[in-house]
């Protein structure tokens, strides 16, 4: 049925602003102020979606975030979004939406065949079948299940929109701007406190947008208006509309999602689509209200079935009439307001009240209005596939366990249900708040809470408006006081006309009917989205899934996109009944963030593209870019990897760069190395304790290479130590290790050896460093410095201060390439000038810039390790053949004790060796494993684990092919004219000359174990 169900007047919509939209391709009109849901209802559209498992036709149940059925695919193309609740989409012009999980259409859906199979598709049916053949599961059953599952579709294009974050602090955060929240915010704001008030709706007012009441003699809308305008007048108050607080975390940290613009307005950094607020509040007041519950009875899901509060909202707030002939089923007084309102709009209303008796005044009033009330009655069925057609009703029997007599059917086009209200305690539970069930209010209530967290109004199962306003005011004042503000005079309580605080709820969950749910053809839905019925819960209990968490997982209750806001309580009440426990004993499952789903893009915020993670660059970076460098990511740094010219491959470029280093002169931007200034009279002692070798004996002006270990004895970092002055050292670290080494040193200094007079200062970016390396390095440097560069005077492993290219500089004679090298450091902002001076001065010598790849080749030719490449946190200095750097004299240093543990002194540990492929033209892949015998990977048998007898299977070995170690570095060497590698081999240091094999897929590479120093073993070249 379609057609206008728009009421002639009323509602908070702007009838002067019509908006066009389409649903499932058909055009409709709504108004500014509508949601998609209210506009559809106003157009008489009820059939909106299909359910997950049985593909049952479904309509709108609610008017809010608890909606389980009314999900749509919103918009198209790159801006499409699946599973958006129609109840939460403010209507905009040009909106396009369609049903999810339907094929070909929501009216005629092939998946509905599942409904016929439903006797087999009980809770957990898939655990019981499909497993005789894994192949059948893999190839047939699982693909079908996967395809059938899921609702909407992911976009197929990247998201064009922009998202944002905001971090704020406040004295008081009020969640929910209904009567309680508004009142709390007002009371606190009056003290001058910083208050943030957020509500998920586009408009403040909460339940007062639906309930028309007089507060202190004025219409409630006026009361809302005056409070909002008062709040707007405070500088220290922030009002957030369309902002859902999705999570409450430790120490009153809240996360809220603000929807800034609708889905058609293009976003930009200047106008983000959504904003995630991070709020740190001294005090939090939860005024999140309550959720109405449906009732469980046969076919309680026919489109046209709706909560009483939702129906009232559609009429009062949106001017849309959900139906003309509703049957209202209730266990409380509150739903009568909906019945009354329907009647006022000319609808023909019948009320089915499950309670034994109806309060007299209500009964009289209904009779007067011409509304038939069937007390002590129950619903036994609902007819109508795509829309409610009739409701079967019967009187309950004497003890309320079943029905008396036969059902009779009432013609209807809508079914309005109310099972009472549950406090919206979700946020309260996010930080571990515990609940207790209140039998009188028939709701869970916040019990033991947290400091500086209060619940008011519906959140505290306080359902009256006056109580909400007064309670809110008191809580607001108290919170402001706790945050250090002086509260003003407490106002007197408000007077609210017709404020039915008590709905006289009589607990009702699964309504009595003629047939047990599992024997009925009808479905008794508990969780609409997942099609969990009362029969499924009964089955779960029968099979032993009788704890609430097991029931939930076995039946999927509460796993839908509404996260159980609607159905959970019914599910656990039915579970309680079936297991003979109280609801309190049964307990709830844990509510977890987010309260409502949050877009991934919003969570990522502006962490997109290059802003995802900082890119660190040196002062020389622009030169590298301008000269065509390819870059390597090293931690956050962009480091030149190699500089291809004229279309060179990497191999060609690196060979050229290497050749230049060995024959002429090269330059490397080494600014990224970590640098730490160590000052104090105990600096030497301190360094002795953190390095394996002795540093306190270093002479002023000298440099020493050092290794740092962790306490477990494994190599952690390496670098140089320079004694700048008696009490001042400069330590360098690896590029990637800079931050962690600095923290490691501070840890020991502050907590283990606070008595030492040492100060550490990170100076990584104080110094830009250019390494000039190659036989012509001295000639180059002579052109731009007056320093005495005579190697007899300026010796290897020493440093000088002076001027280079007119820039104050520190020049270090250290070499990672094996060639004559000068590491020249200048103040960071001189880096570019120094580099350009070096490039200019070196022009005649054929100066060649080189990147990390060439640096790696050159150092490997010299057998120098790279921490993180040769090492992986499992190697001691001895394993690396660097026993020479472990002081025998020092009593202690970090990690020393671990070097004498039984495992660290084993002789067959993996040790660093040089490796020469027998085929000198073949560069073995790095990471290749090494074995004793020639074998190809494709011939390795599948692993067969040892069995119950515990006997190893591959002879006496555990692995099909026992591994000795692996290739850590492997390159083509221009200098050697052949390939070479470094690797780790068990007991390798004693195996020089042996052949080991690197098995590849269809070949195996024989390699000879050699000394790891391949080039200039004597070290003759370092002086040029």
């Amino acid at each position, binding site marked *: 049925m379609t057609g206008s169900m728009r009421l002639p007047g009323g509602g908070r919509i702007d009838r002067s602003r019509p908006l066009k939209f389409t649903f499932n391709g058909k055009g409709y009109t709504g108004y500014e102020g509508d949601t998609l849901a209210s506009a559809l209802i106003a157009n008489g559209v009820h059939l909106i979606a299909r359910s997950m498992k049985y593909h049952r036709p479904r309509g709108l149940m609610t008017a809010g975030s608890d909606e389980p059925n009314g999900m749509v695919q919103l918009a198209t193309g790159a801006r499409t979004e699946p599973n958006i609740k129609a109840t939460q989409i403010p209507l905009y012009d040009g909106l396009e939406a369609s049903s999810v999980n339907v094929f070909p259409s929501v009216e005629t859906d092939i998946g509905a065949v599942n409904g016929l199979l439903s006797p087999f598709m009980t809770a957990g049916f898939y655990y019981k079948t499909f497993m005789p053949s894994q192949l059948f599961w893999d190839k047939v059953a699982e693909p079908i299940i996967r395809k059938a599952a899921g609702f909407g579709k992911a976009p197929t294009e990247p998201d064009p929109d922009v998202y944002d974050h905001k971090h704020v602090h406040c004295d008081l955060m009020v969640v929910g701007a209904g009567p309680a929240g508004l009142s709390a915010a007002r009371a606190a704001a009056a003290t001058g406190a910083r208050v943030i008030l957020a509500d998920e709706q586009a408009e403040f007012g909460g339940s007062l947008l639906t309930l028309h009441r007089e507060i202190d003699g004025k219409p409630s809308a006026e009361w809302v208006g005056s409070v909002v305008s008062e709040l707007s007048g405070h500088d220290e108050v922030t009002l957030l509309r369309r902002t859902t607080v999705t999570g409450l975390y430790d120490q009153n940290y809240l996360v809220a999602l603000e929807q800034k613009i609708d889905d058609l307005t293009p976003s930009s950094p200047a106008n983000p689509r959504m904003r995630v607020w991070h709020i740190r509040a001294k005090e939090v007041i939860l005024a999140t209200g309550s959720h109405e519950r449906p009732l469980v009875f046969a076919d309680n899901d026919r489109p046209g079935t709706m909560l009483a509060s939702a129906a009232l909202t559609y009429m009062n707030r949106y001017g849309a009439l959900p139906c003309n002939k509703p049957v209202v089923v209730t266990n409380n007084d509150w739903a009568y307001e909906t019945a009354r309102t329907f009647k006022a709009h000319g609808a023909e209303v019948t009320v089915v009240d499950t309670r034994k008796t109806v309060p007299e005044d209500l009964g009289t009033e209904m009779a007067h209005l011409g509304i038939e009330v069937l007390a002590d009655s129950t619903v036994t069925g609902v007819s109508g596939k795509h829309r409610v057609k009739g409701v079967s009703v019967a009187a309950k029997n004497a003890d309320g366990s079943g029905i008396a007599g036969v059902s009779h059917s009432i013609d209807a086009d809508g079914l309005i249900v109310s099972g009472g209200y549950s406090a919206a305690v979700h946020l309260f539970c996010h930080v571990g708040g515990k609940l207790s069930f209140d039998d009188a209010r028939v709701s869970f209530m916040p019990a033991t809470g947290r400091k500086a967290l209060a619940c008011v109004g519906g959140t505290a199962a306080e359902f009256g408006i006056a109580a909400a306003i007064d309670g809110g005011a008191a809580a607001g004042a108290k919170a402001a006081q706790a945050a250090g503000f002086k509260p003003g005079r407490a106002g007197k309580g408000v007077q609210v006309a017709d404020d039915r605080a008590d709905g006289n709820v009589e607990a009702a969950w699964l309504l009595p009917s003629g047939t047990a749910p599992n024997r009925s053809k009808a479905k008794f839905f508990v969780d609409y989205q997942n099609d969990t019925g009362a029969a499924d819960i009964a089955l779960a209990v029968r099979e032993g899934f009788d704890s609430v968490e097991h029931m939930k997982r076995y039946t999927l209750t509460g796993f839908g996109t509404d996260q159980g806001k609607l159905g959970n309580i019914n599910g656990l009440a039915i579970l309680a009944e079936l297991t003979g426990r109280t609801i309190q004993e049964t307990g709830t499952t844990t509510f977890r963030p987010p309260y409502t789903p949050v877009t991934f893009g919003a969570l990522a915020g*502006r962490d997109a593209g290059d*802003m995802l993670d*900082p890119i660190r660059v040196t002062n020389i970076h622009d030169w590298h870019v301008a000269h065509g460098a390819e870059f390597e990511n090293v931690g956050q740094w962009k480091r030149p990897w190699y500089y291809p010219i004229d279309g060179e491959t990497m191999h060609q470029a690196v060979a050229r760069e290497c050749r230049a280093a060995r024959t002429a002169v090269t330059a490397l931007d080494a600014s990224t190395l970590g640098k730490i200034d160590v000052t104090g009279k105990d600096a030497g002692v301190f360094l002795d304790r953190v390095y394996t070798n002795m540093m306190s004996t270093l002479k002023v002006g000298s440099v020493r290479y050092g290794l740092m270990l962790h306490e477990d004895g494994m190599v952690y970092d390496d670098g140089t130590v320079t004694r700048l002055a008696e009490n001042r050292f400069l330590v360098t670290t690896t590029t990637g290790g800079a931050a962690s080494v600095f923290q490691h040193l501070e840890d020991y200094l502050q907590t283990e050896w606070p008595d030492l007079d040492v100060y550490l200062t990170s100076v990584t970016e104080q110094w830009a460093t250019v390494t000039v390396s190659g036989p012509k390095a001295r000639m180059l440097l002579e*052109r731009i410095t007056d320093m005495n560069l005579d190697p007899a005077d300026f010796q290897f492993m020493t440093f000088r201060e002076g*001027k280079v290219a007119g820039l104050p500089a520190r020049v270090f004679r250290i070499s990672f390439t094996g060639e004559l090298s000068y590491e020249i450091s200048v103040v960071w*902002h001189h880096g570019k000038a120094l580099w350009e001076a070096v490039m200019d001065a070196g022009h005649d010598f054929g100066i060649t810039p080189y990147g990390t790849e060439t640096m790696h080749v050159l150092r490997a030719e010299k057998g120098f390790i790279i921490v993180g490449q040769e090492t992986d946190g499992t190697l001691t200095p001895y394993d690396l053949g660097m026993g020479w750097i472990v002081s025998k004299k020092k009593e202690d240093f970090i990690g020393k004790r671990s070097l004498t543990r039984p495992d660290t002194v084993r002789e067959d540990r993996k040790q660093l060796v040089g490796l020469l492929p027998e085929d000198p033209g073949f560069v073995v892949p790095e990471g290749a494993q090494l074995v004793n015998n020639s074998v190809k990977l494709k011939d390795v048998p599948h692993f067969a684990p040892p069995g119950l007898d515990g006997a190893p299977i591959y002879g006496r070995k555990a692995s099909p092919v026992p591994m000795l170690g692996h290739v850590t570095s492997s390159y083509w060497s221009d200098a050697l004219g052949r390939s070479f590698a470094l690797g780790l081999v068990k007991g390798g240091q004693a195996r020089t000359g042996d052949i080991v094999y690197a098995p590849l897929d269809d070949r195996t590479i024989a390699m000879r174990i050699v000394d790891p120093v391949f080039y200039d073993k004597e070290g003759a070249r370092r002086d040029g």
Partner: protein
Amino acid sequence: MAKPASPGKVAPGFPPGRASTKELDTRAMDLRFSPLEAVSHRLVAASAADHASVAELPFTTQIGLRGDASKAAFANAVKSAVGVAPPKEACTVAVKGDNRILWLGPDEWLVVAPDDPDGALLARLEKALAKVSAAAVDLTGNRSVIELSGPSARAVLEKGCRHDLHPKTFPVGRVVGTLMAHTQFFLEKTSDNPETFRLYVRSSFARHMAEWLMDAMAEFTGRV
């Protein structure tokens, strides 16, 4: 002030052959290239004084200072060199004329002063501290100083900075070390009218921070 050099364009360099030392000396000052120099024109374009403006304060002298503030000898030595003693109160700034000392930790400060290419201030400090357990380390190159100002400056920072920047809790004369845009920095409030902040950012991170700030400012300046 150095010449702006755009990427790809090599600044006038050194002729082949040996240049005289003196010639080189005079050039050194001109050849300083601050971390944000290459994007300075973009910073200007992204700024709107009515809302938010951003600019680098290049070559601001920065000296890391370590010592024991409870020792009079240390405090006096610092005062004699800088004009003001290091503040003892956490997260505060001591100012004297153009010089300021930022509290970074219980035994750590940052001395901030105008451009001082000869390093005179550092030399004075080192001399004054010669007999005290202390450290003074030149950090002028270590961080870029970025100034963010304007009525929306605080809102710009709130997009990424988790510190409470309300004037009541973060008034002029406060400094904190914190994180924004995944980057550690020191944030100093220097003025209320208009609200002005200084961000001391590691030089290698400065461009990243600048990009982040320009993007964050767009909401207020409308300049995307």
